[in-house]
């Protein structure tokens, strides 16, 4: 019994206090490709939801007019802007690739442990590769 046990309480419908069973804590486990990619999908999803407002502000700046748009472009081109955009691109491609992995699972494919590990590492490689490719092409377009 440790301090955390004391917090694992709930109430029944008639108001009695009951002790809930305590499941093993996350930090007991060694990080594995499966669990790390699973939580990364969530974290990248949250980051993308925040980043969507970057896209909206870019569109709003375009609607506002040339001077507002020039300011927005200047921010995106700054070091901080580029850093945010790079993080956004990586989160996007990771969530994109892992999302396709999830859709494949939903269709019943690739559930065995070997496939899960293989598609997991493939997802990591594809996300990094696509991010670098997108930025290389962006710089090439800019000249």
């Amino acid at each position, binding site marked *: 019994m440790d301090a955390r046990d004391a917090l694992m309480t709930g109430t029944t419908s008639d108001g009695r206090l009951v002790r809930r069973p305590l499941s093993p804590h996350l930090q007991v486990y060694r990080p594995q490709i499966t669990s790390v990619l699973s939580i990364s999908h*969530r974290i990248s*999803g*949250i980051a*993308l*939801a925040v980043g*969507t*407002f970057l*896209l*909206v502000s870019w*569109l*709003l700046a*375009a*609607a506002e*007019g*040339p001077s507002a*748009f*020039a300011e927005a*472009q200047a921010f995106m*081109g700054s070091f901080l802007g580029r850093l945010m955009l790079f993080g956004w*691109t990586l989160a*996007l491609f990771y969530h*994109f690739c892992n*999302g*396709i992995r*999830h*859709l494949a699972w*939903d269709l019943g494919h690739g559930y065995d442990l070997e496939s899960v590990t293989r598609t997991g590492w493939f997802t990591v490689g594809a996300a990094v590769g696509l991010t670098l490719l*997108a930025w290389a*092409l*962006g*710089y090439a*377009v*800019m000249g």
Partner: protein
Amino acid sequence: MAKPAKLTRAAMQSGLGRARGLGAAKEGVQHWWVQRLTAAALVPLTLWFVASVILLTGADHATVSAWIARPFNTVLLLCLLGATFWHASLGLQVVIEDYIHRERTRLAALLAVKAVLLLGALSGILAVLRVAL
């Protein structure tokens, strides 16, 4: 001794519950299904948008406005905004429901996040239409 009745789905559900087919959550698999549907829609939309943004790197206001105003791009941008914010709303809802346990806090967080996402979606749609129309 009589054999206990087998606990099949048919034996445990009421007739009305079976006809509605929506289970205890009252909305069936709608949340799950729409999350997958928007995800599938976002696959081509995301590829199109990223490719477009790469081609627009460093472009000035006139070029970007003209790009947004082309009907094909206007429609796809509206689809992208709708699918993205809908998908984000469903996803963040699950995250909040998983991690915030106090009922009042959870409800407040859900309402706040959904309100902010709705504002974002409307702002994006307004911006696109303002440029396009």
